[in-house]
């Protein structure tokens, strides 16, 4: 016979004991919150993380700390022991009009590439989820740029964008735009070319990711919507878009970070020229560090870039973890 409700925790043996009424004595204390075994298991968990932690620590953690240390130094290259100069570098950077100009260019480049990429990738995703003859081949062709080294893409595009080359030749085929545009030597044109290439290399992966999100929208939602009389346009706006919103936010932010940090395309195609007018912070940093060998200033710039991205990264982490519970 049992008493319902709350069971006395350590005292009364009355509840739930069936055949024998005398409780066995419990050898040893069992009230420890964590048994030694449990603690051991947790420690081995850290052991499993160790290789990854070492690798990340060696490449990310230590160099980051060094960057911060260098940022407060006057340091001209690898053999310079460096001298502490406080916030001089930061002040100098703040007062450097070129810094502000290049920051502006960085945002121009980033927002240009990400904006156009997002729109085009969404359209690509819509195409990717359709059924048509040759879909498998199309999927493979379209994803190619994602597997291609940015260095190769940049070299090839840089070649094609030369004044007497294939881009102009192709444009000439369309009539009004007569050949002979020196794409990479003049400024507004150079940005058009760079952003175009930036978009070309980021659309495929973004499109594939968005398509994956679209495919995971339950099909019966569309069936329910068409029974409710929603047109295909309405279905896209009312169902596909809201349900792929998370992925859209993830890809947009990821692309933003990647573009902000982007290096090979500009480095290979224009090298930041003419006269820094196509530089972004990342290429300028490289130039300062490895062409002008100003390790101090370059590190200061690196710290500034990192801090700027950290603000963004917080938003990014929040989105990934708190909105979609990744990991």
């Amino acid at each position, binding site marked *: 016979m049992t008493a319902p409700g709350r069971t006395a925790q350590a005292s009364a043996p009355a509840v739930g004991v069936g055949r024998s009424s005398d409780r066995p004595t419990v050898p040893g204390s069992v009230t420890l919150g964590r048994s030694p075994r449990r603690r051991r298991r947790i420690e081995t968990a850290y052991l499993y993380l160790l290789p990854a932690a070492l690798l990340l620590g060696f490449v*990310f953690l230590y160099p980051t700390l060094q960057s911060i240390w260098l940022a407060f130094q006057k340091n001209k290259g690898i053999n310079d022991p460096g001298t502490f100069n406080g916030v001089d570098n930061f002040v100098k950077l703040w007062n450097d009009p070129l810094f502000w100009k290049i920051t502006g260019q960085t945002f121009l480049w980033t927002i240009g590439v990400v904006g156009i990429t997002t729109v085009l990738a969404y359209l690509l995703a819509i195409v990717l989820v359709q059924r048509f003859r040759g879909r498998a081949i199309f999927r493979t062709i379209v994803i190619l740029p994602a597997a291609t080294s940015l260095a*190769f893409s940049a070299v090839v595009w840089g070649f094609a964008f030369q004044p007497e080359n294939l881009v102009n030749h192709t444009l000439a085929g369309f009539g009004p735009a007569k050949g002979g545009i020196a794409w990479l030597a003049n400024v507004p044109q150079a940005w058009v070319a760079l952003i175009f290439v930036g978009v070309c290399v980021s659309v495929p992966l973004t499109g594939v990711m968005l398509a994956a999100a679209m495919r995971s929208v339950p099909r019966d939602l569309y069936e329910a919507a068409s029974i409710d009389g929603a047109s295909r346009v309405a279905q896209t706006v009312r169902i596909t878009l809201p349900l792929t919103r998370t992925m859209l936010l*993830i890809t947009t932010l990821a692309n933003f970070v990647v573009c902000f940090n982007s290096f090979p395309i500009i480095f290979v195609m224009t090298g930041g020229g003419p006269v820094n007018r196509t530089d972004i912070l990342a290429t300028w940093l490289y130039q300062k560090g490895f062409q002008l060998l100003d390790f101090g200033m370059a590190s200061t710039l690196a710290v500034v870039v990192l801090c700027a991205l950290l603000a963004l990264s917080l938003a990014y982490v929040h989105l990934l973890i708190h909105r979609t519970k990744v990991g």
Partner: protein
Amino acid sequence: MAAAARPVRARSRRSPGDRPFGLSLLLWGGIVFFTILSAFPYLVMLSTALKSPQELAGPAHWIPDTIDLSGLQRTLADPSIWGYFRNSFTIAIGNTILVMVAGVPAAYVLARHEFRGRRLFLDLVLITQMFSPVVLLIPLFRLYKETGLLGSMEGVIIAGSAFTLPFSIWLLTGFFRSIPVEIEEAARIDGYGRLGILFRMILPLSVPGLVATAMYAFIIGWNEFIFAVTFLIASPENQPVSVGVFASIGKWDIDWQRLMFMALLGTVPVLALFATIQRQLDRGFATISSGR
């Protein structure tokens, strides 16, 4: 275009031609547009690689008048080419090994176990995604100089694999998670420890995921550029193809034919790999959007 945004079931009874003409037109317009956009660099490579130097010097056009394979001959005849490819391969394999060795155990505990610091680790891994290699070049350069890694492929592999690791861990975690926990519990009752379960249950059951992740790491390693161009600048004998191609455009007289052949040879193998792992990557992406 937007009107067609509903995924179509793989084997629906509707035939492909079953959509309104206007939508079909839009769809095929999109297909053509994206095909050209994606294929453009390859068309450029092919078109250029197959033209003779004389034809290249003339006005630009797409279709070569005559197919000229002398560029390929010059490419294959150049002994330094083989060095470039061998180095690319070494870096790619090194990247793969390091990423798997560090990534598999980490992804396994992250997928399966709750422990203090798990959240912190994941947050830190995510934050590394904010880093550009450029930002770390100077301190790494100094660090490598001190440790003697400068100019070696090992240095490039270490830096590159650290940048490959986060996404790989995340891919692997997804694959490990898709294995039912009960199978592990059954193995625990059968007397297997964490390591035994990892090697006898998890790894055999996630072979497709492991292969996909390894290929991903290989591709990233193969395409490595920024660390290679910085750390190997003074060690041409250790440079991979990507740097080789880049270095040759700095020269006075560029042999575009040879360069394009190099680029083609440097891309096609990884493209084949990439095409094979597409499905697994897709699955990985689908898990993000489903918010697991």
